[in-house]
């Protein structure tokens, strides 16, 4: 294999628009890049001057797939800026919603976007004909995630009642119990999904990485808040994340590359699993074992399995939260938090990794500066590094264009990149 | 007509015996509002409620309902909606009872409206007399709808000492009352006391304008070219809230829902709409016969006070006060009538 060119224009089955470009001459990789070509949307510019209450509704529109995540991060960052500490039920409901979003997003990714590769078909629509049961199971699970959000906050894509300060409508006790029943009824479907992924052979590939996720005190498999924790041993408070994570922009991408001082790193399901595996519920730990996951795995393709484990984890956690919330006294009628000047940064785990939002407000509660650091942007450098290694391995094996192309596409997809999000970087211009 | 005495503790018993045969809807809290909902827990009942936003008559004329099912490829109806399990409304105020009576006349005069008849026939109405006007906008004294005279199956009349008088207004009401062992037939003394209490209560309902229906109708009729309509509708948002909350508004549009799955049936649906919405009288997307807010407001008032008076012999407004109370722009019948009649008899 002397010369090889892979040019995947408009990478499919990922969220957003991305290209892969690889040029090999004489067995040497001359060019390799993951281009992110989404049209920039200038969120930071648009946010400046808006009142803080509007921010969650605006930043939710950064990405329809992780809308709950963006909304949660925006609410938490804004609350910090306003010096408001929401009551614990509010946190519990946010966790429950994140659980729902994880289930819906992981199933969407695992079964709709990634799975077709393993069966050599172009899409889940083709699977619908050959493996209708698998598709029906996946559809039901995806529906579950959506229905939970619909019941509790009106809808999943751009949740309605999540607001700075809490929820503009607090769900009824019946809502929580209804949601709980739905999740419990989904147990068989989850089991089916675990079994499905058990039967799939993960490509073997070795590429160790530094892994970063939120971890909190206590016993939770954390999604909502906590300390930014690296598998390399660093840890830092959420609003100080820029102490360990640095960003640079690259000419071929509207996204930014992030590094720690050791180089690229990875976030997402596999990283959370690596950092928090000791916190999994028994049923999720069992699923991890059955899927052959280990906390110190070096294979990025295992992200697919980690997502399945998290789906099980989130379902279990959600049931517990439903019980807790159904028993809790509902907070009083929603009141907007008083506007004032301040600055706040919050981190939230979203399906694809750690998401940071930060805002600075003036005395009238208007945005003067906004910042938003997105998981896919954090992963991009690591993806490119993994692509390098993978292409090297494949070239050594003497694979041709098509195999290299498919391998690269599958690898990028395994990271579940959300390119929609990643171009909507907001500027950190906090004047100290 | 028979009367009984019911102790406050036995209200639940009465509800239980009605619920044995009917799906019972009763006023309950919804946030800061009240609404008629299936009563699942006696504790949730708010029998002393001021006013529900959505009138109880909406259970017979809902905002949206299936008229019939069809096969999308054939024009004829394939299946009408199943007769609903009959419902009972518990705790209907007299003004809303009057509203139901008007909807009955409009829907059940030929050609009979099948869907309304389906919901209404076999229903059971328990009215409750009010102790005082519910809201500032109430006109029940002027409209003489603060007392229940007919249309109910049973009427609850509050009485001192945690007890109620229960009056039957139909055979069905008699049957239910007779099945309740805990009811005690009213004695002559009970009745005398009841009459005294009623007289005291009635005194709290004072007409503001003292205009009877024909006089008001004539005054409204004379106001056609008045500037009041454009002045009053200045801030109208054409939101239709006044129509949505009115117990006698009944206009509608028809929409179809086609099935997604091949071979399944579709639904022809009725959606209640209102004359204050800007699109109400548009034809073929261009000509709007009531293009101005002022014309629309005028039509609403004329419909109640002139056209329905011509048709039914009484006002189409039952004086519940909802349209004014729930209008975000603060457009109030009381104010309109004040201007039309030139005076207000009693201070609001």
């Amino acid at each position, binding site marked *: 294999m002397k010369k090889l060119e892979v040019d995947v224009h408009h990478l499919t089955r990922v969220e957003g628009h991305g290209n892969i470009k690889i040029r090999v001459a004489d067995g040497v990789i001359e060019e390799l890049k993951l281009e992110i070509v989404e*049209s920039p949307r200038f969120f930071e510019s648009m946010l400046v*001057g808006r009142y803080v209450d509007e921010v969650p509704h605006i930043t939710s529109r950064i990405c*329809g797939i992780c809308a709950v995540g963006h909304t949660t991060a925006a609410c938490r960052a804004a609350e910090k800026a306003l010096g408001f500490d929401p009551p614990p039920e509010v946190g519990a409901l946010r966790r429950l919603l994140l659980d729902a979003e994880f289930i819906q997003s992981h199933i969407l990714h695992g079964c709709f976007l990634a799975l077709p590769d393993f069966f050599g078909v172009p899409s889940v629509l083709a699977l619908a004909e050959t493996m209708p049961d698998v598709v029906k199971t996946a559809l039901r699970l995806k529906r579950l995630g959506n229905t939970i959000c619909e019941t509790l906050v009106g809808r999943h894509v751009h949740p*309605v009642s999540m*607001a700075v300060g809490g929820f503009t409508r607090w769900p009824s006790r019946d809502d929580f119990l209804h949601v709980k029943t739905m999740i419990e009824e989904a147990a068989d479907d989850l089991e089916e999904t675990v079994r499905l992924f058990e039967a799939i052979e993960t490509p073997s590939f070795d590429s160790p990485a530094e892994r970063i996720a939120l971890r909190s005190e206590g016993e939770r498999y954390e999604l909502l808040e906590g300390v930014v924790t690296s598998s390399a041993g660093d840890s830092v408070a959420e609003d100080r994340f820029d102490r360990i994570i640095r960003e640079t922009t690259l000419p071929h991408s509207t996204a930014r590359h992030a590094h720690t001082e050791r180089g690229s790193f990875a976030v997402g399901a596999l990283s959370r699993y690596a950092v928090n595996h000791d916190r999994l519920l028994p049923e999720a730990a069992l699923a991890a074992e059955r899927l052959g996951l280990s906390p110190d795995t070096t294979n990025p393709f295992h992200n697919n399995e980690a997502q399945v484990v998290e789906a099980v984890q989130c379902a279990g956690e959600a049931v517990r939260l439903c019980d807790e919330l159904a028993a809790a006294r509902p907070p009083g009628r929603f009141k907007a938090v008083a506007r004032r000047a301040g600055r706040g940064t919050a981190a939230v785990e979203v399906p694809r990794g750690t998401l940071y939002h930060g805002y600075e407000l003036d005395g009238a509660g208007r945005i003067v500066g906004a910042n938003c650091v997105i998981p896919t942007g954090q992963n991009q450098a690591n993806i490119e590094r993994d692509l390098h290694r993978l292409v090297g391995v494949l070239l050594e094996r003497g694979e041709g264009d098509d195999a290299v192309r498919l391998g690269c596409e599958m690898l990028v997809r395994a990271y579940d990149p959300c390119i929609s999000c990643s171009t909507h970087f907001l500027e950190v211009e906090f004047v100290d | 007509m028979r009367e009984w005495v019911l102790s406050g503790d036995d209200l639940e018993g009465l509800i239980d015996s009605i619920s044995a045969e009917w799906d019972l809807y009763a006023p309950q809290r919804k946030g800061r509002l009240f609404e008629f909902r299936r009563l699942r827990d006696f504790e949730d009942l708010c029998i002393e409620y001021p006013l529900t936003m959505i009138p109880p008559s909406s259970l017979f004329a809902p905002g*949206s309902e299936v008229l019939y099912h069809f096969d999308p490829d054939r024009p004829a109806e394939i299946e009408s909606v199943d007769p609903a399990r009959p419902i009972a409304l518990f705790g209907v105020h007299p003004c809303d009872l009057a509203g139901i009576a008007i909807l009955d006349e409009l829907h059940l005069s030929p050609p009979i409206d099948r869907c309304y008849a389906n919901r209404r026939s076999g229903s059971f109405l328990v009215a409750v007399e009010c102790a005082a006007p519910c809201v500032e906008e109430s006109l029940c004294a002027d409209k003489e709808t603060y007392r229940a005279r007919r249309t109910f199956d049973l009427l609850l009349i509050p009485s001192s000492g945690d007890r109620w008088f229960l009056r039957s207004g139909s055979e069905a009401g008699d049957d239910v009352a007779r099945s309740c062992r805990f009811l005690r037939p009213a004695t002559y003394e009970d009745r005398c006391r009841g009459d005294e209490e009623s007289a005291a209560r009635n005194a709290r309902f004072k007409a503001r304008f003292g205009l009877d229906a024909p006089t008001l109708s004539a005054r409204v009729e004379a106001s056609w070219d008045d500037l009041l309509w454009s002045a009053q509708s*200045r801030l109208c*948002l054409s939101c239709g809230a006044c129509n949505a909350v009115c117990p006698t508004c009944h206009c509608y549009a028809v929409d179809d829902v086609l099935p997604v799955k091949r071979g399944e049936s579709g639904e022809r649906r009725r959606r209640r709409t209102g004359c204050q919405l800007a699109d109400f009288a548009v034809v073929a997307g261009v000509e709007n016969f009531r293009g101005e807010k002022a014309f629309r407001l005028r039509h609403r008032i004329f419909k109640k006070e002139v056209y329905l008076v011509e048709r039914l012999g009484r006002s189409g407004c039952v004086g519940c006060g909802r349209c004014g109370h729930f209008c975000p722009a603060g457009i109030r019948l009381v104010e309109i009538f004040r201007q039309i009649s030139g005076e207000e008899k009693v201070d609001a």
Partner: protein
Amino acid sequence: MAGILKPKIGVFSFTGCEGCQLQVLNLENELLDLLERVEIVNFREALTGGTNDYAVALVEGSISTASDERELKEIRRNARLLIAIGACAHTTGLNGMRNGESAKLAWSRVYPDRAFDANVAEEVRPLCEVVDVDFTVPGCPIDRDELLRVLTVILAGGTPRPSTTPVCDECRRAGNECLLDDGRICFGALAPSGCRAVCTSYGESCAACRGHLPGAPVSELMALLEEKGIDREEIILRLGRFGSRERAVAALLEELFPGGRNAQEAAS
């Protein structure tokens, strides 16, 4: 579409959050039945491969770059019916918030260390300002049931009718308290119904993401809110979130930011 037994459908995406495409995939309960009646041949978010052979194009997102414009025109040439889905495609949605500000200036704020990409258009536009749009499914995001209503009517050979009544009508009939009575800003009177008033039913005010009805009572609402003591500027900002393409709102925005949002900054 009468006579087409199993029309081919393409789903396309321009500048937006992709939430509307996701709503198509979120038709979990109906997706398989729908696939009995249509063939989805182009759907980058969900499917590999693509073709120019489709009768119906569902297009999400606004047109914000020169390449967006070229691709949209190509889609228009290929499709017999072009359906705009979602606020971004319909009215620019909140992408329009960046209009009235120079693209170069906005760029320099977001990517201070990179040269301006000439592909980025000065103004974000809705589809209808670039090509003819046959129907629109409004909303941010689109309502799944409304999408189904539109698709089933088209499959039956009919023309979907846009809603002509306001969100307020749906909201009241759903039994909600009016947020205006609470002194909150709500645009339900401006926007066409069809979303089941989901926002107000969940305690949040309507942002008019579905666009404005013809003759929407903007001035009445402004007057009412101002009489309640709400700051005019805040109302205008809020109107501009989704409504920057409505003529009445554009005039108000011009009042707020004479000469554009960053006229002063640009001058200095």
